[in-house]
């Protein structure tokens, strides 16, 4: 009996102590749980919203890639001699460029409606940098995303920035010399105006197909995303306060600066439209949290709700005026930008208060 007992003790002790185990494993740990505030908030609507616009964006990128391919094939038929191609078939090229612009706008519009969520949710933010917001290495070597765009003719662009505003928009509207094939009179009014250009077919095709692929990846990521309250609050606090930057881009874009625009992007569509889209997505996101915030602090909810309405109304009003033909001066753009930033800083601050009251962590 003793022998068996000895063997059992030795074996048992080995099992208990096999090298390097964690000491104190049996200690009753006085852990303090982090309260979960997720259970009764349905964030599925936010995900559905993001998916809905993501899918509509994908329809735009598919069409953009197809029209870019048709354009590329036509130019390839002329051995990429843009002057010869324009001389031989100006009508088809005009139609193609017009279609390409329309498809770009469709894709961009739906992305902007999603941007507040994609850029604000830490696990999805990568796609915003790649698709819409990241600078090129030429613009900002420290912040540029490292990736390579390979063109059909074998050229490689290292860290070329984002698809929408670093590559496609400058190519389609001719604001970046290296990306355009030939300035032409697309409107047929006898003058070649800003935005009238035959894009570099190689760059256009590579970027359009790249954008389509990136959009698919983004959609897959959104489908896999399990939104949390932390995601939602982080998106709000991260994305709301960037109004100054957006208005600065607006001020420098062709919509305000005209022919003297320093900004290569935001010529296809006004930055104000983008800002509106972003705020739309963020407002939608807040709606899914509103009930919880209201239950915790009704005045704070009223203030946030009013802040969203105010900021959206403010930007929407400016956009309507711009669409109605008002040409804003740089000074006005600066004043509006300062005011928008003031409103945004206050709104983001209030959202941060709500997150703290609900004990929801905002990612840093």
């Amino acid at each position, binding site marked *: 009996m003793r022998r068996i007992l000895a063997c059992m003790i030795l074996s048992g002790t080995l099992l208990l102590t*096999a*090298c390097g185990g*964690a000491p104190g494993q049996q200690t009753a740990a006085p852990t303090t*749980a982090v309260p979960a505030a997720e259970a009764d908030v349905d964030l599925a609507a936010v995900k559905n919203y993001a998916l809905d616009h993501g899918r509509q964006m994908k329809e735009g990128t598919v069409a953009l890639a197809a029209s870019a391919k048709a354009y590329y094939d036509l130019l390839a038929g002329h051995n990429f001699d843009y002057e010869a191609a324009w001389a031989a078939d100006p009508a088809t090229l005009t139609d193609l460029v017009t279609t390409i612009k329309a498809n770009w706008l469709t894709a961009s519009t739906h992305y902007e409606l999603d941007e507040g969520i994609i850029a604000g949710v830490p696990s999805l933010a990568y796609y915003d940098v790649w698709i819409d917001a990241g600078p090129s290495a030429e613009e900002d070597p420290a912040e540029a995303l490292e990736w390579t765009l390979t063109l059909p003719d074998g050229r490689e662009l290292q860290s070329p920035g984002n698809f929408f505003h670093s590559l496609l928009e400058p190519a389609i509207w001719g604001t970046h010399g290296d990306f355009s094939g030939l300035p032409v009179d697309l409107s047929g009014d006898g003058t070649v105006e800003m935005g009238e250009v035959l894009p570099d077919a190689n760059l256009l095709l590579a970027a359009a197909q790249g954008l389509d692929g990136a959009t698919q990846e983004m959609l897959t990521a959104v489908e896999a995303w399990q939104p949390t309250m*932390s995601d939602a609050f982080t998106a709000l606090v991260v994305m709301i*306060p960037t109004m100054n930057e957006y208005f600065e881009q607006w001020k420098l874009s062709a919509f305000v600066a005209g022919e003297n625009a320093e900004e290569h992007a935001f010529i296809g569509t006004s930055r104000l439209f983008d800002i509106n889209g972003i705020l739309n997505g963020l407002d939608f996101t807040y709606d899914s949290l509103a009930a919880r915030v209201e239950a915790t602090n009704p005045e704070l909810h009223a203030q946030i709700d009013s802040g969203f309405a105010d900021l959206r109304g403010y930007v929407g009003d400016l956009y309507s005026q711009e669409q109605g033909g008002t040409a804003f001066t740089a000074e006005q753009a600066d004043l509006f930008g300062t005011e928008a930033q003031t409103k945004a800083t206050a709104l983001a601050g209030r959202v941060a208060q709500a997150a703290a009251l609900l004990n929801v962590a905002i990612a840093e």
Partner: protein
Amino acid sequence: MSRSIRTDVVIVGLLLCLVGLGTTASAAPRPPWEAAETVGDELFAAQTALLGDDTVAAIAHVEQARVAAVELDSLPPEPAALLDRALAAAGTAVQTGDGDALAGARGLARGAVYWGSYLAARAVTEQGDAETARQWLLVRDFRTSTRFSRPGADATLAIRDLTAENAADTVARLDADLLDTYQARLGEYLAVVASTSELRHRRAESAGLVAAYWRILAPAYIDQNGADIAEVTSAADHLLPALLAGDESATDEAVTTLQGVLDGFRAAPLAPAEQARRAGQLLRFLALVPIEYGRGVQGDKVLIDLEIQEAVTFMAGATAAFADLRLSLMEIDPALTATISEQMARVTTDLDAANRKTSVVPAETMTGAVAGITDGLKTLFPPEWLEVDTDADFDVVASVLDQVEAAVRAGDYKLAESARLEGYAIFDFGPEPRLLAFAPALVAEIDGLFWQGYNGRPGLAQAIALKGSPEEIAAIRAELDTALKQAQVTLGDLNSAPGAIISNAAIIVFREGLEAVVILAALMASMVGAYAGLRRPMVLGVVLALLATAVTWWIAQQVLSQLAHFGERLEAVVSLIAIGVLLLITNWFFHKTYWKDWIAGFHAQKRQLLSAETGQFLGLVVLGFTSMYREGFETVLFLQALALEAGPTIVLQGVALGAVAVLIVGLITFKLQARLPYKKMLVWTGVLIGVVLVTMVGKTVHVMQAVGWLGITPIKGLVLPYWAGLWFGLYATWQGIIAQLGAAAFVIGSYYLAEGMQNKRRKEIVRRPQTEHTTP
């Protein structure tokens, strides 16, 4: 202004006054935040109208602002007077069509409202009136959200928890949040005023805000410095007129006066715990800078951009922490603080240059520069700032995990893995030892999430090795964040009662002691009879290990932070020596056993060369030493956390308790072991040594992977539970499993080899007489 416009203005003014009076008489009072926003919005509308040359509309909007301001009649007198002054200035500005003056008046009005709301919130908080305080707190400015900071919410949380009993504490929390916010914003607005590249309306509005925000901070300045603030207040008030008059020289002078004041005081001083936390962050971030930089450059060339960007990020974190501590450091030694500030600026410039590839300083230069800063800081820091601060560890782990995600997004998985290992190392030698003593289950979860997964959830090491997508990595990161947050909360809430510390120390010693007992029992089991003498060198090794453990304790007490950097590497080296010796002994064990059993008649081995015996003696000493010291070293590391918590005296009581328990179990084990039949004991001993060896190999491979000495190749599809690693050193990597299989093959092979040799020898023995017989 033309006569017709003047007439319009008078009519509009009268109408608005009537409307305003009617509104205030009939409508229910609005909450302060609504009235405050109306004041701001109407003044902005006046600015817009004036910019569009619509003076009449501008005047009307200013009147609307005045009407709304009436609703803020419960503002304290001084801010209310400042608001009146601002609105009067706005009225004058629209009359004269001066947009810049209107912007300045609007800034002053906004600031006056915030000043008033702060004072009002403070006053009702002192009275314990949470409801009214909450109303006023809705009228406030916020810090701008940046990469390193989010808007503070301490005041909001403090007011939520306000009771009559904690009113004083709540006021302190309110002050800390709001004064910090207004000082930060004052600095930003002052920078705008100073910048001649900004548009004038923006500078004017900022100047108005500066005049009001200074008044919010002034009482704190008087409290801390006992100084006369008339000159500073005068500078704040003269800023806007000087700017509007186009007098840049007077503007500069006022900015310089205010900047000098802001540089020299902090309205909401950091609490001592926060200072220690910032100091910890500063040293940790600094330590990471040369590591990243060294990986990113070779000579004067940048090899890996991302490494340089990481170094830049860590330096930015260090700079932010230094900025928070600068005032306190200046009180200790202003000259040295200034020197360190310059050194940090130089390093930042060098990093920026490398990032832009304009010039690259060699890695050694960077290491030397950072070492100089670190040495200076350690000289400056009060001793309590140099103590281990786990909050700072968590901050830095979070920052390093950001780098993991950034590297994955950039498709650089090698870099992501290196950042992951850094993050794990900081956790492993920072919070983990304390956490192990108090919440081991959390350690299991965090370890799992850092490595191969936990409870079916994937781990970071595995996901990086399999080149997981950015979303997969982000999802694991989110889980890690949650677990780390829980760990931080747990450590923050620790009950440091002496009883708890003693019992935890005792458990650690008992746990590690048992490991040593098992190994020693297994190894010494065969040392009986003629071999009993072999126990002596092993016991000597054990005694030496106990002495070495005591020395390690002493060293750890002196230089814990330095030891922590090498801890895992030291553990890996000791474990490797232990494995090497154990392999030799295992081989020897099998061969010796068979020699003893079957060739007992041959005594030739008794005449072994002296050198061989010496080698055997030393081998056994080393085996005894390494077997015991492994456990002793681990115990020392684990106990340091408790020693920091409660002091060595209390911890040593726990050590004594645990040691007595180990001694009792050890005596029982050896006693029972001695009573087992010899052959059975040999079999058990062999099995035990084999299992111990295989487990030790698995653990050692894991430690070597943790310090980056071995690669990590996960076994796809294999998810092992946490206990498999904990108890048997089984981790789902090819390196670990192959090494363990190798160790097992060695043990089994050694057994069969010994048996085979023995069989051959026996046959030779049986055959030899015949051969001898037939030999002529």
